[in-house]
């Protein structure tokens, strides 16, 4: 398959996550690992009201393609989906989903972990925390 790499404004709800899992699965896959990043109700000791994500979409999708290429080189799978939502997100909503399918679980865990760690370090996506006492674009 071609890896699914996307910046979207659509909610990453249960149906959307499930559709990605189905898209990535294949008959030789023995292990599927899914990471979901979820908006927490607190950060840095603050009570978070909601988050606002922004991105440089064209560059973000290009950086995601670099991650996908490295996943294929290191773990031999192109059964990968990486979707990050932007816009306003409430507590409990999903901001990012990464799904990896591999014949064996070790590779699926490692590739999924690599993909989210590298996404955070290289993909131009930005986060504003809106708390009770003000809002701020934050790192990490």
């Amino acid at each position: 398959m071609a890896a699914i790499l996307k910046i979207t404004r659509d909610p990453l709800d249960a149906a959307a996550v499930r559709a990605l899992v189905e898209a990535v699965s294949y008959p030789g896959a023995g292990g599927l690992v899914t990471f979901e990043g979820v908006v927490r109700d607190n950060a840095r000791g603050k009570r978070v009201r909601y988050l606002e994500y922004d991105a440089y979409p064209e560059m973000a999708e290009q950086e995601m393609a670099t991650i996908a290429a490295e996943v294929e080189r290191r773990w031999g799978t192109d059964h990968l989906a990486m979707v990050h939502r932007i816009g306003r997100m409430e507590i409990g909503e999903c901001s990012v989903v990464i799904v990896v399918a591999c014949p064996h679980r070790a590779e699926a865990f490692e590739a999924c972990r690599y993909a989210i760690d590298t996404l955070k370090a290289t993909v131009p996506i930005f986060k504003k925390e809106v708390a009770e006492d003000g809002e701020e674009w934050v790192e990490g």
Partner: protein
Amino acid sequence: MSVRIRYFAALREATGRDEELLDLPSEATAATVRALLAERYPSLAKVLPRCAVALNRSYVSAGAALHDGDELAFIPPLGGG
């Protein structure tokens, strides 16, 4: 030469723009533009020094040379995930 500057996150809010075209002398670099924007938008003073540089949608060094038609962006601290 003409260079397209794109703004995101704190930079979009500080400039009130998504993007703009700058007409620059041919020897201008990314560093030249950073200085120019700092002057034009004082509200960028805090975030600009913390920004990485993306030229034509790839990360480059702070002093990268520019060419006519380039797309340049200053990338604030990342918050994906």
